[in-house]
Structure formats: structure tokens, C-alpha cells
């Protein structure tokens, strides 16, 4: 077992940790910071993977992800948060410890579910598939529990992060076209959401999902 792989495993662990942190974090600013951290971890792991396997397009992918998820999107989100001045997410229905327990359960489940795939994977870091799957489920859980539109979006982005992480850990990265396509979709999506938020706020003068949804058919 070489150093880089061990580092990747460590980073994977960090990735999961960040996911948990995001699950528990309610202050929007910190949430965004955590998202940036997740991006960093992601980019780093891709870079190390690139160094390990030595295929060049992974470097590009690492840079792309880095730019997007460490700088661009967090900046955009901060700007949004400031412009819409939302700092706090309301208290979620389920309190944090329970959430943590549920999350733990999901992690265990994900590890088991991922075993067959991990067994087959020929990449250096195939053990991390389970972690990737776990963080997918965790971010989904986070989206479920959040009541502020913005933090739900962050959950969505985290989900997308974990997908990329899964991609790299399972297959050592998708072809470049796809990477770019995905990145494009993400950035466009975030822009559109940004536009949305303003419309939503001028209609509902709130970004609280309880206010937005739940009308009768």
C-alpha cells in the first residue's frame, strides 16, 4: 500500500467527515465554508489520483473541480446569502443527535451496499466507493432535513460533489467531455437558482420552504 493511496483514504475519510459536519451545521456561512472544504478535499483527491495513475486528464478534472467548487460556487453562494441576507436555517424538525444516528445507519448501509462494486473495482482507491455512496445518501438526508431553500441547494451541490468523488473512486474519472458537461450543468444550474431566489423572495418575501410550498392542489 503506497503513500498516495493512504492519503486518498484519509481524504475520503475527511470527505465523509465534512458531509457529517454539513449535516449538523445550521449557520449558512459555515455551511458554505464547509462546502468549499468538501470541494478542496475532492480536488485534492483527484489530483493525487492523477499523480498516482499518471493520466493527464485527471489533472484537468482536478483543476476544473477546484476552480468551480473552491472558488466560483462558494463565492456565488456567499454573494447570494449576503444579497438575500439569510444567515440561519431554522431549527430542523429532527434534532441533531438523531440526525447523526440516522446518518450513521446510512453509512453502515452504504458500506455494505457498495461491497460488491468495491470488490470489482480495479482502481487504486476502490475502498472509497462505500464512502462516496455514504456521502451521497448523507447529502440527500441533509436536503430532506433543511427548511431553507439556500441550504437545500447546498445539499444538492454536496450531493453532486459526492457523485464526482464516486466517479473518480470507482472508475478513475469519467471522460473529459462528460466532466465538462457536468460542470457546465452545475454552474448553469446554480445561476438559474440564483435567479430563482430573487423571484421567490419578491413573491414570498422569504426563502423559507414552509412559506413557499404546501399549497393545496
Amino acid at each position, binding site marked *: 500500500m503506497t503513500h498516495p493511496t493512504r492519503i486518498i483514504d484519509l481524504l475520503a475519510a475527511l470527505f465523509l467527515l465534512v458531509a457529517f459536519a454539513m449535516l449538523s451545521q445550521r449557520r449558512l456561512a459555515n455551511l458554505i465554508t464547509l462546502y468549499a472544504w468538501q470541494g478542496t478535499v475532492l480536488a485534492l483527491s483527484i489530483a493525487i489520483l492523477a499523480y498516482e495513475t499518471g493520466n493527464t486528464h485527471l489533472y484537468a478534472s482536478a483543476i476544473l473541480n477546484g476552480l468551480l467548487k473552491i472558488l466560483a460556487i462558494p463565492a456565488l453562494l456567499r454573494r447570494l446569502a449576503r444579497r438575500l441576507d439569510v444567515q440561519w436555517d431554522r431549527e430542523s424538525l429532527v434534532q441533531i443527535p438523531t440526525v447523526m444516528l440516522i446518518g450513521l445507519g*446510512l453509512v453502515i*448501509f452504504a458500506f455494505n*451496499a457498495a461491497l460488491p462494486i468495491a470488490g470489482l473495482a480495479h482502481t487504486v482507491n476502490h475502498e472509497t466507493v462505500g464512502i462516496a455512496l455514504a456521502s451521497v*445518501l448523507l447529502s*440527500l*438526508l441533509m*436536503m*430532506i*432535513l*433543511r*427548511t431553507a431553500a439556500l441550504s*437545500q441547494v447546498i445539499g444538492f451541490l454536496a450531493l453532486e460533489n459526492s457523485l464526482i468523488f464516486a466517479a473518480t473512486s470507482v472508475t478513475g474519472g469519467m471522460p473529459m467531455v462528460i466532466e465538462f458537461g457536468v460542470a457546465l450543468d452545475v454552474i448553469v444550474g446554480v445561476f438559474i437558482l440564483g435567479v430563482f431566489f430573487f423571484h421567490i423572495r419578491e413573491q414570498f418575501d422569504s426563502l423559507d*420552504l414552509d412559506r413557499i*410550498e*404546501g*399549497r393545496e*392542489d
Partner: protein
Amino acid sequence: MHTPIGLPWELLLSAVVLWSVVALASLLIPHVPRMAPAIFPLGALGALLTAGAGVLALRGPPISTVSPLGLPGLPFHGRLDALSGLFLLLFGVTACAISLDLAGYRAREHYPVASRIGLQYHILLASLALVFVAADAYSFLIAWEVMALSSYFLVVTDHHTPVVRSAGFLYLLIAHVGALAILAAFAILAAHAPAGAPLALTFSALRATDPDPAVAGLVFILALIGFGAKAGLVPLHVWLPEAHPVAPSPISALLSSVLLKVGIYGLLRVAFTLLPAPAPWWGLITLAAGLGTALSGALLSAVQSDMKRLLAYSSIENIGLIVAGIGLALLFSAYGLKAFAALSLIAALYHCLNHAFFKGLLFLGTGSVLHATGERNLGRLGGLIHRMPQTAFLMLIGTLAIAGVPPLNGFVSEWLTLQAFLKATALPRPYLAMGIPLGAALTALVAGLAGYVIVKFYGIVFLGRPREAKLAQAVESGPFERAGLGLLAALCVVTGLWPAGVIALIRPAAQALTGGEAPVTAGDHGARIAVAHAGYAPPLLWLALGIIALVGVLVLRLRSSGPARRAPPWNCGHPVAGARLQDTAEGFGQPIRHIFAPFLDIKCRRPGLDDPEPRYEAAVNDRFWEGLYRPLARGFEAVFAGARVLRPRRIAISLLYVLAMLVALLALTP
């Protein structure tokens, strides 16, 4: 169509084409009013062609044909055999009379309505003709549903009144549920076709499938439900008394005379030609359903006070008798008694013809009354025999026919049915041999009730004194109406006077279905029919009656000079006050309500001691509404509410669904 297809097909198809053209032409009526008078006579012509095709099909061998249209691997198949022929004949003749009536009836309507009726009516006729000759499940269902739809549009002709709309909805809904049952029946049969045939849905292929008894039973039950819903079998009859009254009377006539028979046709087609030899229990439940339907129909019609509702319930009663005959036939053929099966089937088919004729006659007659008086409520009619004598006379023929008294046609089928019931002692199972003849008693009871009902109907509408002042303005119906009535009345008389001839027509159909030769012999040059030496010769009876009555008349006339002196009625010396003193429909139904109270759901309002304006009301509702349909509707409403709850308001919940589903499926992955 592939040539050559034979004369009957050519007649039939030309009729269908004619009707389609007429249907499209009637769209133009509002723009070209001049053609309005031609529309319905042309329809009548098409009906005659159909009748001709029917007669030829009855005489000749079955002719099949395949059209290029249809599904891939399943083009439309058509087959003209004896059964189709018989029903085409029934349909053609009745439709001809109804078209004649419409020709007069529609002259009064304003053009948009006339054009809509012209369109839908002729589409209906065409689809009916095709139902009788369709020879594969798909084309049968297509024709079937087109028939249901066009008749629905005719029922809701006056769609501005809510009652009409709800009646129409109920009608189409039950028709569609029935169609689904029929579809399921066909599909189940097809699913048991030998492998390699993905679409074994032609009737010949379905006949070739050999389902095990359980499957065959299931198919039969589905068919009974599906076609029973069309024919108005209890408890699927509730649409009938709602839909038939609200439709324009000629349409009611068509619905009662022909569309109900389509259900009978389908039942026969499936039970006798598509399925293997029946099991005894098929016959038993059919018989039970038939008798139950007949009895409840008779009871409920006896307590109606709307003349069209009364007739609608009486249609249910007659359908019940027909189905009872079919059940008997199934029972006999289940035990291999082919000849007796043929006999019961002849009885049932004969009654189909009779009911088509006299019920069509009565409904057309109510149409004339409705037009002359604008009144459907029996309580506001009366004495019309003086205002519209010819209609009254023709209606009297229908009345006697439906009452099942000799020497008219209603009696013949009753006679045959009873003869068939007597044969039940030949059944090998003791409980059957003992029990079935009691069915004859029920049949007799129903016949008696029918007499009661129809006396009430005729006596209150046409006899007595007018119950409303406006009835004095009533006028005799127009020539076209009377022509339609006359045609049907004549048919009632002919089929009553010459049973041997009619049976000769029906026999091939019955024989084709049961494979047995019915033990009905014709004697005295066709004047007399006999079952087991028990004969019935209406012409002789007519003769004897006529001679004796004539003698009586002559004797009295010779003695008395000039016409009888007129004097006020005696009435036991009580002065005969206002016309309101006459018996009402409710009053006439009172004994029935009293005797059969347990079977009826009666809402009665009696005047109190100090009522400002004392009046008596008695309404009788169908028990099946409260007993079956309302609970069903409530159940569905509950399920709907449940489905609404299932749909989450919040995104989070649906995301939770996603997560849960994901976890569940991943856990389930093999």
C-alpha cells in the same frame, strides 16, 4: 372488403355505408334545411336492408369475411351466421319503425338538435349492425363502445338539465365497466390459446382455445357481468330506469328494443359459441339472475308513477325473463339435453323479438303522448283515448301483447318458456328437477304482475277522464308516428298469430347454438304449434272468439234499435265529482307496496290531521342504491382521499421517498 362476399354482406355493408353517409349529411341540416325530411326515411331504408340481410343469413350458411382494417396481425373479421341474422332481423325491423317515427318526431325539433340526433342516431345504427357481425374481440369491442358512446350522446340530447347529464354519466359509466369486463373475458380466453399465437383474438381462434373449467367459468362470469350490465341485469340495472326515461322517446324505444338485446346477443355468443360445454352452475346462476331481475323489474315497475320509468322497469322485467330462458338452456345443455336446450333458447329468442316489438311500440306511443301533452307523470294524464283514438288503439295492442295474453305475441313466448320449464323434470339431479319447475311459478307471477302494471299504465294514460285541463288540447300524433306505431303493432299481431312461422325463423339459430332439434312441432298448415302434444293455435282461437263475439253483437243489435242511450255514470249513486277523484298511479300501486313492502324501499308521506293542503305522496326507491351503489361510491371517495394524502405537499417528503426507495431497492438487489 374481399370479393365476393355474398348478398347478405352486400346488403349489410350498403346499409352501413348509407347510414354513415346519412350521419355525415345530417351535419349539414342547419345549413341545408331542405334535406332534413329525407334524413330519417333514408335511415329506415338502411334498416330494411339490414333486415333483409338478416333474413338471408338465417336461411343460408354462415359467411365470413376479413377487412383490411384493424391491428397488425388482427384485422377486422366479420361473420354472418344464424344468430347474427336473427338479431339483425330484429334490429332492422325495429329500427325501421323507429326511423319512421323519428321522421315525424324530428320535423318538430329545431335544426341543430335534429342534426345532432341525425348524426349520432345513424352512427349508432351502423355500430349496432357491426356489433352483430363482428367476429373478433377487437372489432367487436370497437363496435360495442362506439355503440355505447353514440347512444350516450343521444341520451344526453337535452344536456341542459342536470338530471339528464347524471343519467347519461351513469349510463356510460356502467356500459364502460361492462366493456372492461368483456375485454377481460376475451383476453383471458386468448391467454389460454395454444402458444405461438400472440393475438388469438378472432372468434374462431377463441373457440379453438380449450380452457380448463375454472377458467371457462371465470370467462363466463365476466361475460355475464359485462353483457348483463348492457342488458340491465339486476344489480347492474340502475342506469336503465335513469337513462331510458330522459332520452327522446324514439331513442328510448331503440335503447329498450335493440340495445338491451345486444347484451343478450353477446351473452349467447360467448356462452354458446366461444366457450366449451357449460357447467350446470352457469345455468343455475343465470336462471337465478334472470328470475330475480324479472321479479324486481316487475315489482318496481308496478310502483312507478312516471310512464317512461314504468316502461323502463318493465324492460328490466322482460330482460329477466329472457335471461331466465337462457339460463334454462345452459342448464339443459350442461346435462346434454340438447333438444330441451333448443326449446328454452327458442323461447328466449322469441321473447327477444316480442319485447323488441311491443316495447318499441309502447315507447314510441309514450313519445306521441309526451308530445301531445308535454306530460310524463301518470298522475296528470288520462282520457287520451278520446283525443288520440288511433294511437290509443295501437297502444292497446302493445298493452295486450306485453300483458302476455293470447292471441298476441307476448303470450307465445310465455307459453314456450313455461313448456321449457316443465321439461326441467328431465334433469338428472333431483333437487334441480324439483326446484326448477318453481321457476315456472315465478314466471307466472311475473306475467301476472306485468298485466297489473300495464293495466295501470293504459288505464291511467288513455282511459278515465283527463286529470288536467290542458289535456283537452292534446291532438292525434302525425302520420309518420302512426306509421311507426302501426308497423310495430302489426308485427305484434303477426308474431302472435303465426308462431309457427316465427319459430321456423328462430329454429336455425337455436339449433346452431345448442346443436339440438327443439321439440316444437307445427301443425294445421302452420296455424298450430305443439310441444309434447300440447298445442296452441292462435288463429283458431281468434276465429272462435270472433265468431262468438259477432253472434253476441248481432243478437243484441237486432234487438236494440239505434245506438245506446247515454246517461251520466251511476257510481253507486255517489255523484262523480272532479277528475281528481280518479285513481292515481300511486293509488294503483298501493296494493303492491302493501304486499311486497319488505322488498321495497318506500318513502311515504301521509296527510296529517290538520294539514292546510292535505296530499299523499309515496315514492319507492331501488333498494340497490342504498344497498350497493352508495356504499361503493363512498368507498371510492375514501380511496381518492387516501391517494391525495399520499401525494406529499413538501419537497422534503418526496426527497424522503427517493431516499427510502433507494435504500429499499439497494437492500433488495439480488
